[in-house]
């Protein structure tokens, strides 16, 4: 079944197109996430709907070039509208975004009904832009997507250092005399171009997730911008190609939701399992730290008893240690025995357990005392 699918020329074309879109989104999404433009991206992609319809109406059919041109136009006008509302009114950012997102989408819905009223096969082609249908990608479309990918990659590579500085420290960039406004404009145009390129695969509603999920996942694994961009591209390409393949297995499943769920699964795994930042890792290292501290406190207490009794091999009694530390200690003592820091001894005629510090335990206690860690 899978081999059949992969050997089909159409499926391979569609998967290549979806991987290109996913990779492109991953690459540009990094900057959208770092520059806190997730909700602006959502606004641009919803606002692309009237542009999609305009492109469709102008050429009278589903031509990806025309549709992308229209979508880029209304997407950019929407981004400018957000800026204009911000300048002209006291409304907060989220209200600016919400107004533009919903009103442009509404205009798109009206235009959509105009196209659907014209009837014929055209309405099938246009509805796929709502939820995305990668299967509609043709070889010609994939060439366009490849060209967009190359343009975006070239832009990033040429201006890498400048873009990095503008992303992380725009004030310094400005002080150094970089054309910050132009670079920011370039990045926003690139963002809109990426969103528009992804619409056929992901649809206007879910494009934002295709854009930001790979970047959020990549951030958990690596801390360096270059590595993050590459990892994010790979995750995006994987989600795109995987989603296209699953939706190609038939049953008429839209591609967008599948790609988004795949990408979100990667985000979830990353947030849980990524080394150092991941939640599982954090919980484990917190537990290790707690264990080490409680072991250290027992060693120091035994060392204090030995010093007070002037006997390095003083056998500390269980109940006495538990009273000193204020809690039961069976697991801590077992761990200390296992790491060879204490040794159980019998202390006749008492029947309760006793321990003495081993050579290694004394050394560690002394080190703890010297460096001032642990309770004194």
């Amino acid at each position: 079944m899978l081999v059949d699918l992969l050997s089909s020329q159409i499926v391979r074309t569609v998967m290549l197109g979806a991987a290109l879109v996913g990779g492109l989104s991953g690459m540009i999404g990094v900057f959208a996430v770092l520059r806190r433009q997730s909700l602006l991206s959502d606004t641009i992609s919803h606002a692309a709907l009237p542009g999609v319809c305009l492109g469709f109406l102008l050429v009278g059919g589903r031509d990806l070039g025309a549709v992308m041109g229209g979508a880029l136009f209304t997407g950019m006008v929407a981004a400018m509208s957000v800026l204009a509302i911000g300048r002209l009114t006291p409304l907060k950012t989220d209200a600016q975004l919400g107004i533009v997102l919903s009103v442009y989408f509404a205009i798109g819905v009206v235009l959509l009904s105009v196209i659907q009223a014209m009837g014929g096969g055209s309405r099938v082609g246009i509805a796929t832009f709502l939820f995305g249908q990668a299967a509609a990608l043709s070889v010609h479309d994939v060439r366009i997507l490849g060209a967009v990918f190359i343009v975006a990659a070239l832009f990033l590579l040429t201006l890498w250092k400048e873009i990095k500085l503008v992303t992380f420290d725009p004030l310094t960039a400005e002080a150094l005399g970089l054309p910050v406004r132009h670079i920011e404009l370039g990045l926003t145009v690139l963002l809109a171009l990426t969103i528009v390129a992804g619409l056929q695969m992901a649809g206007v509603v879910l494009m934002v997730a295709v854009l930001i999920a790979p970047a959020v996942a990549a951030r958990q694994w690596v801390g360096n911008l270059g590595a993050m961009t590459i990892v994010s591209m790979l995750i995006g390409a994987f989600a795109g190609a995987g989603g296209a393949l699953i939706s190609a297995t038939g049953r008429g499943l839209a591609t967008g939701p599948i790609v988004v769920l795949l990408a979100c699964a990667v985000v979830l795994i990353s947030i849980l399992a990524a080394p150092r930042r991941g939640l599982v890792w954090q919980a484990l290292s917190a537990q290790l730290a707690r264990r080490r501290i409680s072991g250290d406190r027992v060693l120091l207490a035994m060392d204090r008893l030995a010093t007070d009794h002037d006997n390095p091999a003083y056998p500390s009694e269980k109940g006495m240690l538990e009273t000193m530390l204020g809690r039961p200690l069976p697991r801590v003592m077992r761990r200390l025995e296992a790491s060879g820091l204490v040794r159980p001894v019998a202390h006749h005629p008492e029947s309760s357990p006793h321990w003495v510090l081993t050579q290694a335990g004394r050394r560690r206690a002394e080190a703890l005392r010297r460096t001032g860690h642990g309770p004194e």
Partner: protein
Amino acid sequence: MMVAAFFDSIPAMILLTGVLVGAAAALPGVFLVLRGNAMLTDAISHSIVFGVIMVWLLTRELSGPVQLIGAGLTGVLTVALTEALTRTGLVRTDAAIGLVFSMLFAAGILLIAIFARQVHLHADTILLGEIGFVWMRTTPVMGIAVPVSVLMLGVVLVLNLAFVVLFWKELKLATFDPALAAALGFAPATLHYTLLTLTSVTAVAAFDAVGPVLFIAFVIVPPATALLMTRRLALIVPLAIALATLASVSGYVLADHWNVAIGGMMATMTGVLFVAVLSARALKRQLQHRRAVPDDPAPRP
């Protein structure tokens, strides 16, 4: 008899639905816009798709009280998930919002595609709503066939109105001075969650008519427009409802005239009114500025 004739009239029912959506959405909308939480509406209304399909799978009910309760739960789930994701410190708020609602929306759309293809549930209808067909599903109320959407929206409108009137003082204080509200023991967090729950409930009541995205326009745009016209909270609320009503009525007339999507045209009209008020405001400022110049000539050397 006249009442029955009113509820039998298709245009009257479409108009009434539009007006009810606008009024019910504007009530929580005013406070969301003022508090800077407007984009949570975007998240909630998309997530509602997941809630609607889950409730449908469990109870086979597409409307009624279970759907309203399901919507409330979904809204709280969305906000709680977003906050949990932000609290890990691994994801920023804006990205967390975008991820959570997309995930729930995607899951909802897939569940619909897999389980509910033969039913009235269809992904396109879910996204855009169909206000032109709300009159088709009715339920008898005191012997009169009332559209289910109208009934649900009416109940939600009363609910929202009661909340805003009863907690007016608390809402006002929590919106403009959350720190003082907390100090006085007004529990601004509880108020915040109640507001978001009511928004979700309103979203699901409006769902059949306008879908999740156009709903955002009704929540955000009329309150934002009213905010540009006055700074007095007591005036903003009725003004927002009036603007929403005007948008619904004019949108319906234009949609009927041009034969285009009714819900889309109503939402578009909220935007047209916003631009009109924005332009009038800018023009007024310019005139005031120009008048101010001859009154106050610059001192000559």
